[in-house]
Structure formats: C-alpha cells, structure tokens
C-alpha cells in the first residue's frame, strides 16, 4: 500500500489501516530520511505525527482522528479537511495547518510550535498553553471558537480572527481566558465584557502587538490565501492576564 515515489516522498493509502499500523509506517518512513509523506483516505486514525521527532512534511487528505500531532516534535502537518479533538495536544514543536474546522481542546498544553485553523474550533481552544524562553506556541484561528477559549493559559499567543462572523461580527464564546495567568490573546471581532473570564484584562494594541499580528496573520494568510492587510485593517482587542497568581488570594495562609 505504501508507494515509494522516490527517496523523498512517500505516499500512503490509509484506507482501512488501523492507527497503530499507520503510525508505525510513518515512523519507518521518517527514520528512512523521507522528506515528505502524503496520506490519502485518512478516516479518523488517531495520533498521526505523535512519535515523530524531526522536520518532515506530512499532507493529510481526509479526516484525521483525535490527538493529531500529540506530543509532536518537528513535523509540519497540513490537513486538507477537518481535524477532530485534541489537535496539537502537548505539542513540543512543528506546525499543524488545518484547511477546515478543528474540534475541542486544540493546542491543549502546547509547549511550542504553530497551529493554524482556517475555520472554527470547539471548546477550550488553547487551554493551558505554556511558554519558556525561545519556546512559544502560537494558535491562529480563522473563524470563531466555543467557550473557555484560552482557559488557564500560562503562555503563548492565541489569535482569534472571526473571519466568518458575518455582519454582526460578534464572537459567542463565554468564559474567555478563565484562569489565564500568562500569554496573550488577540481577538478580531467584537465581544462583550461578560464573555470574558474574571482573570483577564482588556487592552489596546501597541506597536509590538501589531508586529506579532503581522507575522502570524501573514503566515495564516499565506496558508489559506487571504489578504493579510485586509484582515489587519480591522480593529483587534488584546486580552492579557490580570494577575500572575489568579488564585493566590483564595487561601487563608
């Protein structure tokens, strides 16, 4: 089933292949020095890219299953379709580009790398993302998100663009940034104060914020053929953690 086109590109027909076998083949391909892997007919196989630890191009056609790129360390995955739950779970480095929607907890506890989703994501997107020194995860969502966006965020950059919000232009998510104690969220499109968690503050963007947006929205636009300038024209809101210790005052001593 795995056709070797040349030393550089491997094509795998994933139809009816159990995830364990599929991932074993990916491991093999990557350890053989393959530069690019094309997966066709992917239908819900979990953990694609999980145990891969170097830069390799993976194109997925179909619908990968939960935990796409969980613990991943290096590969660049493009999904020509939708991703399910847990995409980029505890990811260390690499890139995931989803040409559609993604499910819940995208980027859960991500430690580095970048995730771009063209359309909407589910609940708790970017929950507990972290950062340290040069490692800073980035999650850019083209559409909107469900509740608890950026919950418990301890680091990283989360950008929500709301490109599909229509005329009203308002996100519907509640509890945005609940428990946030690090990192930053940039929102395009309007929200009401009550939609925010108690631990986040709202600020106007400064010059350096625009530099960040330019960089990552630029990448987003090139992945999905948008005009970055057009997106950036719109007003953005910056959300930041009010306290480093959101629950520090909860205790008697």
């Amino acid at each position: 089933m795995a056709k070797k086109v040349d030393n550089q590109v491997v094509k795998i027909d994933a139809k009816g292949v159990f995830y364990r076998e599929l991932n074993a083949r990916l491991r093999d391909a990557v350890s053989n020095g393959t530069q690019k892997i094309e997966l066709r007919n992917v239908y819900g196989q979990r953990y694609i890219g999980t145990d891969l630890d170097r830069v390799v191009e993976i194109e997925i056609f179909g619908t990968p299953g939960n935990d796409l790129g969980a613990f991943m360390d290096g590969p660049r995955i493009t999904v020509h379709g939708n991703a399910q739950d847990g995409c980029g779970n505890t990811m260390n480095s690499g890139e995931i580009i989803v040409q559609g929607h993604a499910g819940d907890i995208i980027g859960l506890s991500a430690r580095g790398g970048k995730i771009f989703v063209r359309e909407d994501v589910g609940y708790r997107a970017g929950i507990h993302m972290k950062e340290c020194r040069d490692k800073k995860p980035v999650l850019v969502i083209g559409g909107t998100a469900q509740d608890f966006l950026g919950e418990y965020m301890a680091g990283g950059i989360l950008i929500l663009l709301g490109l599909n919000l229509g005329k009203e232009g308002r996100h519907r998510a509640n509890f945005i940034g609940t428990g946030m104690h690090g990192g930053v969220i940039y929102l395009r499109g309007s929200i009401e104060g009550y939609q925010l968690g108690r631990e986040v503050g709202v600020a106007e963007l400064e010059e350096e914020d625009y530099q960040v947006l330019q960089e990552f929205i630029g990448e987003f636009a090139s992945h999905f053929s948008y005009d970055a300038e057009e997106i950036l024209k719109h007003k953005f809101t910056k959300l930041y953690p009010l306290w480093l210790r959101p629950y520090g005052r909860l205790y008697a001593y």
Partner: protein
Amino acid sequence: MKTYLPPKFTIERDPERCIQCQVCVNQCTFDVHYYDAEDDEVRSRGENCVGCHRCVLFCPARALTVIRNPLDYRENYNWHPEVIEDIIKQSETGGVLLTGMGNDKSYRIYWDHLVLNASQVTNPSIDPLREPMELTTYLGRKPDRVQIEQNSTTLMTELPPQVRLEVPVMFAAMSYGAVSINVHESLARAATEMGTLWNTGEGGLHPKLYKYGNNTIVQVASGRFGVNPEYLDVARVIEIKIGQGAKPGIGGHLPGEKVSADVSMTRMIPQGTDALSPAPQHDIYSIEDLAQLVYALKEATNYTKPITVKIAAVHNSAAIASGMVQAGADIIVLDGIRGATGAAPKIIRDNVGIPIEMALSSVDSRLRQEGIRNQASIVVSGGIRNSGDVAKAIALGADAVYIGTAALVALGCTLCQQCHTGRCAWGICTTDPALTKRVNPDIGARRLANLLRGWSLELKDILGGMGINALESLRGNRMQLRGVGLTDTELEILGVRMAGS
C-alpha cells in the same frame, strides 16, 4: 486584626546549657528564635513554632525542648481545639485552609487490624539468612496465557513491557517544585541503587536527573508540566495522574513563591506565577478518553513502556479500575485517604476519599471477578508506614506499593504539615536555594536506600516465617491475613477471615 489563635507549642530553653551560639536562629525558618542585640541574648517566640524539631536536633548544647502548649479550653469532644482554631483562622482570613502531608484524622487504620500468619509445626518456616528468598516483582500487563517452545525454555509469547523491581516498594510521586531538586536527586539515586523506581510527580524532570531515567516514572498530569518527547523517552514508566489521595477530584495550585527560575524552566510557566493544575485532565472526561491518552502515550513511546494510571481511592474505585484496565492501563495506582500532598485544602484532605485497604481489596476482587486481574499490576499508596504494611498490602492483592511520607521522614521530615508554606526547615518541601541545601543528596540517597534495605530484610523475615520463599506466593494470598476487631462487613470487603477462624 488581633489574632485569637493560641500558640501551639512552647519553647523551653535551658539557660544552663544554652551557649548563645544562634544555631537555632539560623535553623528556624518560622522566625521562632531570634537574637536580641540589646540584651545580647537568644530568645524564642513560641507562637510561631510549628513543632518541626529542627532547632532541637541541631542545638549543639541540647538546650532546647519543644513541648505542646497546654491548651486549657474546656473539654469538648465535638468542639475540640482543632475545630475551634480552624474557625478562628478562617474568620481572620476569609480563605480556604491549606495544609500539607496526609490526613491526620483518626479514621480506622485497617493495617493495624490485620495480622499476618506464620508457620508452626505443620509446615516449616524458612530462615532467609541461609536460604534464597525472592522479592523480585515484575510490573506490567501479563498475557492471558504464555506459550513456550517445545523442548526448550524459550518463551514464544510476546510479552508487553515489564519492569523489574528488586524490592516491591517505590517512591511516590512528589513534584519538583513541591519538593526540592535535592530531594529528587536523593530519590532517584536511592531507587537506582536499590533496583526500584521513583516518580517525578507532575512538575517535570530536571535534565540533570535524566541519567536516572531507567529507574524513573514520569508523570503526565492535568497541568502537563514538563511533558516533552525527551521526558517521555528517558522514563522507564509513564504515569497518567488522574487524582491523588490527599485531594481527590481537585487540581493543584503550586504557589508562586515556589516557582523559582529553575522550576519555571521545567514547568514552562513564568517565574512567580502559580502553577495551576486543573481539576480534570481536559482531554479525559470518560473511560474512552482515558484510553485515548493511554494510547497517545504508548504511540509517543512506540509501545516500549508500561503506562500507569493513578487515581485517588474513592467510593466507586472498583468500577473505575475495571475501566482503567480496559482503557489499556498496564499498572493501576490507588492512592488512599491518608495519601499526602505538598498542599491541599484541609477540608478536602481530611474528608474525601476512602482508606486504601478497602480500595485495594475491592479493586483486586473486582478485577479477579472480571477475569482481568492479569492485565494490570496494582500499586497502592497512602499511609504505608513499614514493611508490615507492605506485606499486608501484598497479601490483600497489591503488586507493589509507593511510599511518599515514609521516604520524606527518612530525609528528615517530622510531619509538621507546613509543606504548603514552602518554608520547610528540613529543606525538603521548598525551592528556596538556601533551604534546599539542607538535604544533601549523598546523605539523602543513603538514608533512603537504608530504609529500603531494612524493609527488604524484614519482608524476607515475614515471608520466611510463613514458610514462603517468594513474594509472588504472598501476592493476593488473603489466607495469610486475619482480622482483629473488625465487623463482618469490614471482613467481607477485605476478604479476610476473623482471627481464630
């Protein structure tokens, strides 16, 4: 606000013996002892004392005694001093009461109501000093049946990953951040020396300890602190932490004071922020989701390591454990109501969960009834105090035990329950660089290895007395136990007969 809290301890300083050397001043981290420059005298403020005995043991002149402050509240079984003082603390602060270590309440300790058997006349006991005695334990999923090649001893069945322990006692999860790096190093070295495992807890693993990876269990908890491919790769076993006996069902807040530069690096959160562990793992809301994470970790390590799942012992542990085994856990860990912590709300620590003895026996029985006991090893923790408890736990069905509190006591801990303050005078539960030095890893590792050596010898004595020469024969062998002072229901749940029957 004036505090209505009476002092817990008083300090007696023998003026005949005190040489005014100020060792007590330097050793105390709770501002009890101080030097009064005006009077040129060392004095004490008993009201700050937590009863950790650091000064008593380090006073070169043996001049100090710490005694409980005699409290003359009128006697009241219901409104005892602790209850009164907790109310005072909350009325003065309006907060949740935090505490450290394990449940100190008088719930029945079933180990103390179970007695072990010994051989007399009808079968010979064995002297472990002169005959081989085996404590070796293999943790991991066992196949339903094995096939052996004919006319040889070659195993044909492919075994799932197994971990060999030379002594069935491992060091329980205590995170870097809660305890110091020197405690981690002491545990890692002792585990390596004794052929057992230690557990990183949920705060990641300092790179300088990677070399002990073959004796390390790394934890993946709700905060996912320090979880990266290298962390998973160096480990011998990976543990998914769902809950802990000291605080079942709730997450953890490592206070910002303990998030030092190094801890911040390992956990990947900004220095000085609280390290927040959410109550649930947000990718696990069901047994099916647990299976997803179990297999995510198996995929991430190419099926080379056993995956353990740790839960707090709660009312329906048996049913949950069955689900855990079916979710792919190779080892299940049960942490009982007496399990300890670096910080937990006191009300949770003291009131939530069930005794480990009950959880163990019900889980072991349930897995046997379902015919899946071989599919996972059982490890128990939460109040294992000595080798007698270990032997009883193994007879009740455990494959091995974890010790946390006992290990810390070996390092100097006196259970003063101030872990949550980060000011541990013994340098154990702190990340303060000056205090951390109070645990010397050379000495710490020696003390811990000594403890395990002592327990191993005792376990062999216990086995020999029963006429058993391998721990394997005691495992789940409840006929070697009898109950004392237990009700019929308790005996039934423990699966143990009354002494004399």
